[in-house]
């Protein structure tokens, strides 16, 4: 009888262990690398042809309507910010760890994006004026309805460029931080589009 009970207990423990392991595996989330993917789309919904087939030249008062598509695959809702900067050919670019803090910021936008979803963020801009300053062309612009005059010039108005930086809100730091939290460290993410003020 005692042997029978012992066998029962050992078998019950073994089977329970096996089935509980299966249950644990079934309930565990599959490992996945968190990331945020994004791109800037032209008015024709493409990742090219930003200036409607006229090269990189943008004439004054021409309104360009682009938008960002930001996909959150971080595993939880994110508070995402996009910082817009205007630079020229000599501006220091952002990189994987640091934003282009020396390049003037001309605007920003933020959005809450649930995990697995894509947000569309509009970016509408135009050149209002082209002014000469020290042999360089300096622009007066309207960005998302706000008038800005960034202190950046380019010779003959050629080779201006937008930097778009992805920032995410870090609750521990209680502020937006450049990039997003990757496995082990933050991952900086940025885009740029060149244009000429013609």
């Amino acid at each position, binding site marked *: 009888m005692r042997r029978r009970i012992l*066998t029962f207990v050992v078998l019950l423990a073994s089977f329970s262990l096996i089935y509980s392991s299966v249950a644990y595996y079934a*309930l565990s989330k599959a490992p996945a690398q968190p990331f945020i993917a994004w791109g800037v789309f032209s008015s024709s919904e493409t990742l090219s042809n930003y200036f409607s087939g006229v090269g990189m030249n943008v004439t004054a008062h021409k309104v360009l309507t682009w938008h960002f598509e930001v996909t959150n695959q971080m595993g*939880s809702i994110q508070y995402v910010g996009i910082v817009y900067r205007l630079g020229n050919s000599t501006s220091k670019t952002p990189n994987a760890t640091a934003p282009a803090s020396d390049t003037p910021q001309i605007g920003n936008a933020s959005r809450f994006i649930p995990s697995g979803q894509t947000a569309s963020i509009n970016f509408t801009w135009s050149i209002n004026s082209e002014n000469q300053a020290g042999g360089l062309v300096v622009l007066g612009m309207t960005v998302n309805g706000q008038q800005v005059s960034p202190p950046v010039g380019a010779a003959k108005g050629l080779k201006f460029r937008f930097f778009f930086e992805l920032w995410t809100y870090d609750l521990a730091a209680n502020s937006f931080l450049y990039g997003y939290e990757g496995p082990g460290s933050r991952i900086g993410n940025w885009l740029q589009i060149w244009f000429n003020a013609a």
Partner: protein
Amino acid sequence: MRFRHLALLGILFILLSSLSGTTDKASAQSTPVDIAQNKIVQAFQIVQQADLDGASAAAVSQLASSLNLALSFEQSAIELLPTNKTGSGIYASLSLNLSTTTSVEALSVASAARTQTLLSRLGVYSLALATGLGSTLLVIELHRVKSFVRKIRLRRLRLE
């Protein structure tokens, strides 16, 4: 020794008093837009926690929509601030109210999600234990099952 303790306590008291004074001053200087901004972040924190606790995608999506609306009110409040302080205050207040409502909803969603997760885990592990018990009984009583099957076969043979 006692004097030292008293002195330490005194320093601690002065530090705490000065800190609370600074906090009071800071909150007194906060504009409605600052308060709305802080409330949005607080709401985001609660919504993210609800998400991590296993809230459904639909619930999180709805909470995110509310947060985005609160954010757009806050943006309007910022834009109006230099020209129309009353209008700015109204938008800041709308943002604040919406963030507060979203926080309350998120807390409820998080609580329901935690309960749901706990119940489903409990269910799955109970099933695992029950299957374990069933398997054990099957192994132990296998000889009886075999003899039962044999009996049925014999009965069929006799009938034929």
